[in-house]
């Protein structure tokens, strides 16, 4: 192909065959899939570790595993002096103290960088050098009586041509595809938070009323 006809690389053509959809969606789908697996694993952990089960099949009853806590309170006597601390034991669902923040992929960065370089240069250098030299010499001698003739001649010629041409063509492709996925802790779902709050509120002591108070009211 003659150098003059060598066109630059078409940028649009270079990018047209790229699977951009796959490049972007594949990491996001992988992140979503990982999140789903993590959620399932945490749910299984929650049910197997923090609950006891009763029943079989569809009628499984999950009963929270309780742990025993000791509540210590100071006592001030009527005369203002410190009394012995009072200890109260109460039960608390194990679920309420487990750091069950949802672990999930919370950030996926997809960076795609593609560089197509195309350059063409044509250096043409033509030099023509012509050198001609001519040299002539002539002498003639003529005599008569006794014929005498002398002819002398000399001719010299020189010619020199030179030509040079440089052509340079460069084409390069480079592509960089970077995926950064970060897993962090998300806030618990509202439903789980409500369940935990309900459990934790159950540790408040129940105040019994006098037997006749309800009837009088």
């Amino acid at each position, binding site marked *: 192909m003659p150098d003059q006809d060598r066109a630059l690389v078409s940028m649009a053509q270079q990018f047209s065959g790229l699977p951009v959809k796959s490049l972007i969606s594949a990491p996001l789908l992988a992140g979503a899939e990982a999140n789903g697996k*993590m959620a399932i*694993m*945490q749910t299984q*952990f929650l049910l197997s*570790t*923090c609950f006891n089960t009763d029943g079989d099949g569809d009628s499984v009853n999950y009963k929270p*595993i309780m*742990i*025993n*806590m*000791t*509540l*210590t*309170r*100071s006592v001030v006597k009527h005369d203002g002096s410190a009394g012995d601390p009072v200890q*109260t*034991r*109460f039960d*608390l669902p*194990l679920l*309420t*103290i*487990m*750091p*069950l*923040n949802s*672990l999930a992929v919370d950030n996926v960065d997809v960076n795609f960088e593609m560089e197509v370089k195309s350059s063409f240069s044509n250096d043409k250098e033509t030099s023509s050098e012509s050198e001609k030299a001519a040299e002539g010499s002539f002498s003639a001698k003529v005599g008569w009586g006794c014929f005498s003739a002398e002819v002398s001649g000399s001719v010299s010629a020189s010619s020199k041509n030179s030509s040079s041409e440089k052509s340079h063509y460069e084409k390069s492709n480079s592509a960089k595809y970077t995926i950064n996925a970060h*897993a962090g802790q998300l806030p618990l779902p509202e439903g789980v938070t409500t369940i935990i709050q309900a459990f*934790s*509120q159950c*540790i*408040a*002591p129940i105040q019994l009323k006098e037997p006749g108070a309800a009837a009088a009211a």
Partner: protein
Amino acid sequence: MKDQQQIDCPCCGQKIYIQPQLLVRGSSFSCSNPRCDASVALSHSSYSVTNKALNKLEKLRQSQL
């Protein structure tokens, strides 16, 4: 693991912030209400079940990361 959990104080209803890993080592945690001097600790009878659950959760996290 430095997760902080919270439970309601049985005395005043304010929050008691607890760290489960320290709880199984015998630490006690006081109520956030400065007027309430209540503190809670894990009873010895529950050390085993709590520790086992925390270790299991930590393994789960390691496997997920």
